[in-house]
Each structure stands twice: as C-alpha cells, then as structure tokens.
C-alpha cells in the first residue's frame, strides 16, 4: 500500500470528521450564482484576451475507438498551429488521447511546447482492478505522456468506499511521477454537488495536480455550476494550505461563449493566478474551431463560416 503524500500543515483529509470543512453545496444557490456570472458581458479586447487564453489552455482531445496514428498526427498539427492563416494564434496546451496513441502524438509535437496527455486507469469507467490501473498509468508515462488523466472509481465512491478511491489516486500519482496527474471525477455520475465537492477534496488530498470534471462520455459534464463547485473546492484548499491545484472542465464545452463564461468563473472565483494553462485547461474537441472563428470575427468584424476552419 502506497503512502499518502505528505500534506501541508493544516490540511486534513476529508475523511476526518470535520464536516464544516468538507461543507455542503446548495444546488439552487450555486446554480443561481453560475447563472449570474454567465451574464457578464465580455466584449472587444476583453473577449479577445479570453479567446486567446482559451486556445492556450486547451487540451485538444480525441478519445475514440477509431483513433489512429494518422488522426492523432493531424490533431497534433492542429494543436501546434491552430490557425495556419493567423500566426498570432498560439498553440494549444496539449493533446489528450488514448494510451496507444501516445507515441504517435509525442513524435508529432516534439520540439514544440505542446504537451501530450494520456487518459489511463481503465478510462472511462475505471472498473478494473487497481493494480492494472496503476500499471496503465506507469506505462503511459513510459511511453512519453507528460500528463496523465485518470478516472476515479465512481463505483467505490458511490458505495461510500472513499478510502479505496483515495488509495488508488495515491498509487496512480506515484506511478505517474513525474507527469502531471489530472483526476477525472465524472461528475455526471456523482449525482449531487455535495458529492462533487467531496470527490474534489478527496482527489486533491490524494495528490491530484488537476481535478477534471468528466470523461466526455456522458451527456452531463462540465456545466458552469459544477465547474464553480470544483473551483470553490480548489479555492478552499488554497486558502487553507497555499497549495495550488489546477482545474479542467471537459465535455460539453462546445462554443467560444461557454469558454469565456467559464473563464469568468475562474477569474471571479480564483483570480488572475489561475488564468494560466499551468492551472487551468479546457478538455475539448470541437471547441477550438469555434474559438478560432470568434477570434477571426473579432479581428475582422465579419461573422465567419466553418468552411474556413480546418477539421482535423
């Protein structure tokens, strides 16, 4: 059994009976707050700033059974230079793929700043024995993944076996060293915001570098309120311990407006410090082109057609 990482002073496991610290989330109020924040009007230079940031924060993702080295190479090319006609558009943060495609992706992004993130731990269900999941994480790092996106064992979590969930994250974290570990909660299966908060704190306590909403395989994923709940958990950990944990909403963010609204949540919950790819990512596939269209619209004043943006 792996040892839990040493935790900064003052931070206690959510398993400790310190209920006020785990706390609760009121559904109606958190949804109302997210709705309020979504009404921020972000225009002109403020919008361009956000769209540029959204590109730099993107984990451009393909997670299909049909993925091939060719598909992934094309995606990686897009990741490096999202808009070939506009060199001011930055690269995305990373490509996010299945373990078998890590090598292909790694070759294509070599020499650029674009990272390779691999899902692991029996993605998306997580329903495999722990040792197999740990081994998978170890292997993807060997294959060159800079970042590992693991899933928590929702079955164990919902059965109340928090210690199993926790121990597994600890072991995967150790196996994935020195890669960055993103822990996917799969919020759509957790049922309540209270559970999202608990799972967030649990993952953070177990050593997650990032917490991530979803696998992208469910219809209910990175909504604004669920993102807000997770950002608030990150904020509480930071305020209590000074530790900065990253956030990655994934799944369901398909247009530029949603990405800007999400960044407003980050800005007003965690502040400027989190407006960096080191601490915030978008997991998305179709989002990128919409952001690119909006950037060009802001720059040219013309509404755009998808025909002018490559599908990779």
């Amino acid at each position, binding site marked *: 059994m792996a040892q839990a990482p040493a935790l900064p002073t003052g931070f206690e496991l959510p398993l400790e009976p310190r209920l006020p610290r785990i706390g609760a989330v*009121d*559904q*109606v*109020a958190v*949804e109302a707050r997210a709705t309020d924040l979504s009404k921020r009007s972000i225009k002109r230079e403020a919008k361009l700033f956000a769209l540029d940031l959204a590109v730099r924060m993107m984990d451009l993702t393909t997670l299909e059974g049909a993925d091939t080295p060719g598909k992934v190479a094309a995606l990686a090319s897009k990741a490096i230079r999202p808009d070939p006609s506009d060199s001011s558009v930055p690269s995305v943060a990373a490509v996010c793929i299945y373990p078998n495609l890590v090598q292909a992706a790694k070759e294509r992004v070599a020499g650029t700043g674009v990272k390779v993130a691999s899902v692991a731990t029996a993605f998306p269900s997580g329903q495999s024995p722990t040792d197999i999941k740990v081994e998978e994480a170890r292997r993807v790092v060997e294959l060159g993944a800079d970042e590992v996106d693991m899933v928590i064992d929702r079955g164990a979590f919902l059965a109340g076996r928090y210690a199993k969930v926790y121990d597994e994250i600890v072991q995967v974290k150790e196996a994935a060293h020195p890669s960055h570990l993103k822990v996917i909660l799969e919020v759509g299966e957790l*049922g*309540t*915001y209270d559970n999202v908060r608990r799972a967030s704190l649990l993952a953070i306590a177990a050593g997650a570098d990032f917490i991530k909403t979803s696998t992208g395989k469910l219809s209910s994923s990175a909504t604004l309120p669920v993102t807000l709940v997770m950002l608030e958990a990150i904020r509480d950990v930071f305020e209590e311990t000074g530790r900065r944990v990253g956030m990655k909403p994934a799944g369901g963010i398909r247009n530029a407006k949603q990405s800007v609204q999400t960044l407003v949540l980050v800005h007003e919950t965690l502040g400027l410090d989190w407006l960096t790819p080191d601490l915030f990512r978008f997991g998305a596939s179709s989002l990128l082109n919409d952001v690119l269209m909006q950037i060009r619209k802001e720059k040219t004043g013309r509404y755009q057609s998808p025909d002018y943006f490559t599908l990779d």
Partner: protein
Amino acid sequence: MAEPRGGTGRLPVKKTYKLYIGGEFPRSESGRTYEAEEQNVARASRKDVRDAVRAAAAAQPKWAGMTAYNRAQILYRVAEMLEARTPEFARLTGDEAEVNAAVDRFVWYAGWADKLAQVLGASNPVAGPYFNFTVPEPTGVVGVLAPEEPPLLGLVSRLAPVLVGGNAAVVAASESHPLAAIELAEVLATSDVPAGVVNLLTGRRDELAPVLASHMDVNALDVTGANGDVAELERLAAENVKRIVKGSAEDQSPWEVAGFLELKTVWHPMGV
C-alpha cells in the same frame, strides 16, 4: 352593608373583587378601589398595567409554543368551567342566555386553534425552485378594551379570538360592569390557562386605556370597547406601530382572529 341573607343568622364571607395579573389576584398596587355594581372593585393603576403587560409578555411565547391542539383543549376547558358557574354568571349578568352564548363562543373558538393555519395560511407557487409557505402567528401581547356591554359575552367575544391565535391579553374590563370579568378570571385560573396569558384589570377606562395604547411592549390594541377619544388612543398606539383592531361585541368569525395574527412567509430552495 349587606344584610345577612334569609334570616339564618349566618354572615356570608363576602368576596373581594381584585385584579387578575400573572395568574394571581392582587389588589391594585395603588390601593384604590371604585364602586361598580354595588361593589368595591379594584381600581387598577398605571403600574398595574405595567405589571400585567410584563406578565403577558413573559407568558406569551410559551402559550404560542404549545401545540394548537393543547390550546384548543385549554379553551374548551374554559368553556366547561364557565358553564359550571352558569348560575353565578347569570346572577351577575342577569341574563342566562348571555352566559350560554359565552360558553358556546369559547367552544367555537377553541375548535379554531388547529385550523387557522389551514384557512389563513397558504403555500405559494413562486416562479423558481423554492418551497414557499405562509403561516399565521400570534402578534404577541394584545391590549383589549372590553365592551361595556354585554359584560360577559362582550368580553368573551373579544378575548377568545385573541387567545386562540396564541396571543396573551391584557384586558381593561367593562368599567360599569366589571364583576363578570373578575368572575371570568376565576374561571381562567382554574382552567389550565397558563398564568399571565390573560390579565384582567378593572378600573377607570380613561386611566387604563392610554397606558395600554402607549405601552411599547403591547403589539396590538383592540379598541372595540373603547369609549371616549379613540383617535387619541390610536395616535398613542402609532408610537410602536400597533395593530389596531375594531370589531364588535357580537362578532364570531375567524377573521376576528386574523386581526391578531401576523403572517410569516418562509422560503426554502428545493435542491439535492
């Protein structure tokens, strides 16, 4: 003054008519009396009003905190005790029908205790994920200026709606016919009505009413039985925004109760 009755030679023990404050029967702290219905009756002072309001304010939360069922039981008990003294009340009021009506009035209002919230309250369909309901609650301490006539039924008609809603009362009894009020105090004292929930003061109305109207710890004023300068009483009552109720000595309706109730609306989100 009074002759021994019936020539038996026995001298009766004559009742002293006193005030009813905090469940006790004190004399007026002023030591004064006045004559009404051929009796010497206590003439309450400002300080007696003060003591009565203090007793009422202390007793009210517990009375309001009882279950509605229990309040109904107690008011029903009042009716029973009142009925048991029918001959005595009939002698005082000169009208047995009035006594019977007073008994029935208590019975009628007793039955309202556990129905007021259903008739006067509401659940409100607001446009959002909230459960929202409105419940009636007692306003607190009510000053009652009892009607001069009829001495028993007038008093009971004003007092019962105050009590059934969970309020405590400080009553200025009929000045000209105070004996029924004092007799009623004895009924209340033996009916499990908690001490202080009803306080009955006899005396000069023009001395008592302004003190009640201006008292900052009285929440509502029933001016049904007010004589003289009602406008002045209402002006005094404005100092703490008292609820002013003007009914009649005969009314019997749940809306009489409503005058002594506040409405509280509670919101709560519905979420998981």
